[in-house]
């Protein structure tokens, strides 16, 4: 019997393990208080930590209210939210990734509360340009980009040009006011032996197609951009504006305006091709602000948006941060809306700016922040005010990210023509739209 008892023990051990393995991560829900808000978010780093302060302040301003916060990362949140929203202990407020696959799915399943009334009540539709709000909209037929509002973004992203003030001064150049000036600035710097634009395209090639997309944003219309991203009106990518943009980006490669050897430097290493003093400018998003600031003293670096052709302002790549939405089954929707409104308040926006993040709404004039950040916020606010915040074009189709990367590498290497580039992207886009029918 001895040998069997050991085997039995082992057997039971396995059975127990199998059971615990099969159980999903359970959340034990406390007693539902009438004044409790369950919030799920995915913010990380100092910005994520800031939310503890924000939440505490909200509780102070609303005595009797308790915020129960759960922190996730984006993937984690996106994987667990659909299931969690159908459970009794679903969060009241949660960050929901934009787009068809995440927010669209939840809207389709009727899990998110439309926020239109709250938007009117609190004036959210005045705070943000329609271009920004559109990204959080879905119709009843789950069409993206229009219809009811399902989320409100608290932070934002913007893509522009970091510039090294010392290098500019040493070479007697200034921030350009027109695109033509920008191009001649590149040439001037190159002639003086300075690396005009930091670049690194091995790997995912993001810095490369940001250059293309930035130029593209200065040429296409708002309507086209929205139609392309939201997949409506069957617009084509293969249009002259895009071809011209591709041609310009390609010519810059040929003219040697990019970091020498950029094709062999991994995209993730982009900042290393800019700081310290490695290049005059770097075209990228506000996410590198901290790294750039750390590399110098306050005031060493600035940020400007690439100016439009003939000085006419155009769109800038950017977008709202991951928005906050309210679950349809929330027992405290009004409180939840109150909370979201607090998140986009002036006070919170100022706090967000002070830790180096870009808030989605304008900040007060007297907040103390690094000059680089101030520049970024100015660029963003300007774009927001003109409804000129553009898109990350790879959002339009899942395969686009990879294809844009590979295509950019080939474009810069002069192996394909601008027309071939746009045609290829168009094919990917068209295939995707067709598969959605």
């Amino acid at each position, binding site marked *: 019997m001895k040998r069997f008892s050991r085997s039995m023990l082992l*057997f039971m051990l396995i059975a127990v393990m199998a059971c615990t393995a099969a159980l999903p991560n359970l959340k034990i829900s406390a007693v539902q208080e009438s004044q409790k808000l369950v919030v799920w978010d995915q913010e990380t780093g100092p910005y994520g930590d800031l939310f503890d302060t924000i939440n505490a302040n909200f509780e102070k301003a609303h005595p009797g209210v308790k915020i129960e916060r759960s922190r996730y990362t984006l993937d984690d949140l996106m994987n667990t939210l659909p299931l969690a929203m159908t459970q009794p202990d679903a969060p009241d407020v949660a960050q929901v990734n934009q787009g068809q696959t995440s927010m669209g799915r939840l809207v389709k399943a009727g899990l998110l509360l439309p926020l239109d009334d709250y938007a009117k009540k609190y004036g959210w539709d005045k705070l943000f340009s329609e271009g920004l709000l559109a990204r959080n909209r879905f119709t009843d037929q789950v069409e993206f980009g229009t219809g009811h509002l399902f989320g409100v973004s608290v932070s934002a992203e913007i893509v522009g040009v970091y510039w090294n003030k010392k290098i500019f001064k040493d070479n007697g150049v200034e921030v350009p006011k027109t695109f033509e000036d920008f191009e001649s600035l590149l040439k001037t710097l190159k002639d003086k032996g300075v690396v005009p634009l930091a670049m690194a395209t091995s790997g995912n090639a993001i810095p490369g197609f940001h250059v293309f997309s930035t130029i593209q944003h200065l040429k296409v219309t708002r309507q086209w951009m929205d139609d392309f991203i939201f997949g409506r009106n069957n617009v084509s990518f293969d249009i002259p504006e895009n071809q011209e943009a591709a041609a310009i980006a390609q010519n810059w490669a040929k003219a040697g305006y990019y970091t020498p050897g950029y094709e062999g430097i991994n995209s993730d290493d982009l900042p290393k091709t800019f700081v310290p003093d490695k290049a005059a400018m770097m075209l990228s998003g506000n996410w590198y602000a901290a790294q750039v600031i750390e590399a110098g003293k306050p005031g060493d670096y600035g940020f400007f948006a690439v100016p439009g052709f003939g000085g006419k302002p155009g769109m800038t790549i950017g977008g709202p941060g991951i928005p906050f939405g309210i679950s349809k089954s929330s027992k405290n929707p009004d409180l939840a809306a109150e909370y979201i409104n607090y998140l986009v308040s002036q006070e919170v926006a100022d706090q967000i700016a002070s830790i180096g993040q870009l808030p989605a709404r304008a900040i007060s004039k007297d907040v103390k922040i690094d000059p680089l950040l101030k520049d970024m916020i100015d660029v963003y606010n300007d774009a927001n005010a003109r409804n000129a915040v553009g898109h990350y074009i790879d959002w339009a189709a899942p395969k686009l990210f990879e294809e844009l990367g*590979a295509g950019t590498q080939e474009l810069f*290497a002069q192996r394909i023509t601008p027309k071939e580039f746009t045609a290829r992207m168009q094919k990917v886009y068209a295939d995707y739209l067709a598969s959605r029918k």
Partner: protein
Amino acid sequence: MAREIEQSRPIPVAQPAHRARGQRRLRAGLPWLHWSTGYFYLLPALIVYGVFALLPMADTLRASFTQWDGLNPPVYVGLDNYASMLQDPAFLTALAHNLYFIIFSSVLPILIALVVTSLLTRRRLPGMTFFQTALFLPQIIPITVVGVVWTWILNPAFGPVAEILRAFGLSSRPWLGDFDLARPVIGLIVTWMTYGLCLVLFLAGVQRIDTDLFDAAEIDGANEFRQFMVVTLPGIRNELGVALVITMIEALRLFGLIFVTTQGGPGKETYVIAFQLYQVAFIETQVGYGAAIAVVLTLLIVGLSSSVLWLHRRVMGDW
């Protein structure tokens, strides 16, 4: 291994003088035990393996015949995925690249290892263990470390290679971004990863060869090279076979290195099947097509390994 199965002899019968409790006559497999005992010992392994490996494999096969985005119910499409694969330029390019990398993972390293082994024919060099350990290290290092390290080494701006070239007055090239050089360079990194493994295998095999064979050959007037061909090579035929299969599979399954360095680029120069699998199944969420790619990759690996082993047996068997 086939040899193993044939040679597992039945345990001879024992006839003890005393028949104490628990003692019985022994036959092959100790059958006086209730047959379930064997299964008891197998069960834990079978459960874990079955649920987390076998079942998913069966699922992959099933999924490969559907079109599925991982969320909505799958749609049965028969052999469509496989048909598309044959016409998919991305897949065909990836396939060609994997086969190309076999040269760098198998052919080159084995040749290098053979050459080095020939120099060590019959020699028991002191310090061999140190060499073997050091040579094997590239296999122990996690693949992402290999990728990160080599990306830095080959960095045209501030990497070691660039620095050396500058010291000689030569200009550095953007190795991993050059459309003509990226693939061979990745290939060489793969060679760097596997040649130590081959060498270690061959060296161990060489130690096992009976020195009498060498003496006999020497008496027959064979020089060192001839000794290598006639004694060493046949002597390490098993290791050769193992090296061939292992390195070939490494080339076919290549993923981590590509992910961390070139992401299939520049353009599609270093695109490989496993990378496409990842993109298709998880980024583009075309699970059915991804499953089909997985099936084809599996068939490729099993098919090529078997063929190589068969060929190897044919060639080396008559050596």
